[in-house]
Structure formats: structure tokens, C-alpha cells
């Protein structure tokens, strides 16, 4: 399995993602600089977390115009699995590859903590191997992770089974108190209509080895590997 991790000025989870894919998942992984345009030949493209272009203007607003996003759009239309994590999710939203937008967390503060997630669908290449009855634990670390979409778009996402992860409590209930940032409908991750692009605020790459405190993130790598 061949994977690549994009690198923008200000990315800071690129090495974490590379390590998780290369070492924990055993994928043959390469970096791809933001000025490149051809991303063909990979089985997985990761748009990593961080603060691309200093988060200036809006998170992801400048990165969406980086040359490499041309390759991301092309591969998205070809059906290549693309995973946007945290700032990567924000970039995919700004690029219009995924619907909606990010607002500042309702508490305004930067939230860094482990969260509990409910997998809402296994009909994606990222979650096909996940047992929906098991809740997942992964860290979040963001200031603008308050997912917003209009009522119509949110209903459409629900109807089309595009909501992939929701924040929930230890019983699996998507409550207000288990929602760390104010996201509409407790949404932590969504996919596109063709289901090959996933954006999520939690960090699976930081939960891929026991030494990091958990391995639930590896369930995504396992699903991707099995799908090939």
C-alpha cells in the first residue's frame, strides 16, 4: 500500500502521520510538498494537521490554493482515498471538496484532549473494518473545529450516510457535554458523496501505537489496507 502525506508551510502533524502510516500501519509512505501537482500512483493521500500558512485569514483558506490541491482534486474525482485530519479537514472544506465550514470552538479556547467517538457508518474505505458497537478514543487539538453546515446540508449529510464520526459520551450518546467544540449535530468527521474523501478533526495518527495512549486510529489504517 502506497501512501503520501502532504506538507504545507506550517503543517506540524506531517511527521506524526508519516510515522503512523510508515511504522504503525506498514504503508510505503512518502511526503509530497505543497508545490507539487501530480499525486497519481498513491492508494492513500493524507492532508495532515497543523497550521498551514499560519492559519491566516481562515484555517485552510490559503492552503486550498496551493498547487498540490490541484492533485488532491484530481485524485478525489478518480476515487483515491483522501484523509484530511484537523487542519487537513479544514483545507478540504475550504476547497469545497467536502461541504460545510469550520468556526471557532464555542468556548473560543484551543481544545486538546482525548475524545470518544461513535462510528456512524462503515460504508467508507476508512471505516469498513470498524465494529460500530465499539466506541473509539482519539485526541483532538484545535481552536477551530466547530463544524458548521446549514440545516439543509446537515440533513443531506445524514440522509446520504456521510456523517462518519460523532463526538459522544462513554455510553455512546451524542450529548452536548461530550461535544468539545460546538459542532453541529456533534459531527467529528464527514465523507464526500462518493465516500472516498474523509475529513475528521480527531487525530487517528496520534492514536496508532500503545505508547501514545491508544491504538484506535489504527482501525482506519486496517480498513484501508483490507480494502485494497
Amino acid at each position, binding site marked *: 500500500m502506497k501512501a503520501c502525506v502532504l506538507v504545507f508551510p506550517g503543517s506540524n502533524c506531517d511527521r506524526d502521520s508519516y510515522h503512523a502510516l510508515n511504522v504503525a500501519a506498514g504503508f510505503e509512505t512518502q511526503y509530497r510538498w505543497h508545490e507539487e501537482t501530480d499525486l497519481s500512483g498513491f492508494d492513500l493521500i493524507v492532508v495532515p494537521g497543523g497550521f498551514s500558512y499560519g492559519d491566516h*485569514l481562515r484555517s485552510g*483558506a490559503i492552503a486550498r490554493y496551493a498547487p498540490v490541491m490541484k492533485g488532491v482534486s484530481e485524485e478525489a474525482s478518480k476515487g483515491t482515498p483522501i484523509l484530511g485530519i484537523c487542519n487537513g479537514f479544514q483545507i478540504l*472544506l475550504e476547497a469545497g471538496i467536502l*461541504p*460545510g*465550514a469550520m*468556526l471557532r470552538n*464555542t468556548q*473560543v479556547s484551543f481544545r486538546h484532549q482525548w475524545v470518544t467517538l461513535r462510528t456512524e457508518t462503515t460504508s467508507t474505505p476508512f471505516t469498513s473494518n470498524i465494529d460500530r458497537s465499539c466506541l473509539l478514543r482519539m485526541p483532538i487539538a484545535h481552536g477551530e473545529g466547530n463544524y458548521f453546515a446549514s440545516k439543509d446540508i446537515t440533513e443531506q449529510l445524514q440522509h446520504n450516510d456521510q456523517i462518519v464520526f460523532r463526538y459522544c459520551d462513554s455510553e455512546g450518546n451524542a450529548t452536548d457535554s461530550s461535544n468539545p467544540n460546538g459542532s453541529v449535530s456533534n459531527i467529528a468527521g464527514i465523507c464526500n458523496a462518493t465516500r472516498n474523501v474523509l475529513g475528521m478533526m480527531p487525530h487517528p495518527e496520534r492514536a496508532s501505537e500503545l505508547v501514545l495512549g491508544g491504538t484506535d486510529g489504527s482501525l482506519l489504517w486496517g480498513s484501508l489496507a483490507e480494502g485494497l
Partner: protein
Amino acid sequence: MAKFDVAVTVRLQSEVNDPQGLTIQSAVSTLGFCGISNVRAGKVIEFQIDASSIDHAKQTVEQLSNNLLSNPVIEDFEYDISIATSDTS
């Protein structure tokens, strides 16, 4: 060619929750200011633009604002434009 001063104001759409505005509102109340409500936070982006006419300048400003300066999913923009008072380039 003429040079114009532009100030684009970007605001969250009225139906979109504004955590920054709410936080400022809370501080306003804590400081004891009375009668201040509906605080909303936005941003102003200023620049100068060379164009053959004010209409051409406006066209460019609107394209730029729609494509980069604002996110139409959550934000609206408006702008002021006038003949440049000084050339700071």
C-alpha cells in the same frame, strides 16, 4: 490607470453562531458596560488596487472577496472603495 483604496469588511452571516462575539459580549458585561448587546466580531482587510476604472476595480474586489477573503458558506462581505489618497507602494 488609477489607484484605489479598498477596505473589505468580512462578517459571519447573521444566522451563524459567533463565539468571538459572544466572548466579547461576556467581557463587556463583566467590565460593567450597560446597554451593549448583539456583539459580532468580523475582520477588515485593506489594500490598494490599480485599475482602469472604478467598475473594473470593483469587479476584481468582488472576485477576490468571494474566492479568498471570505468563505461564502459562513461569511458575508461588503467593501468601501475610493480614489487612493496616498500611494504607499
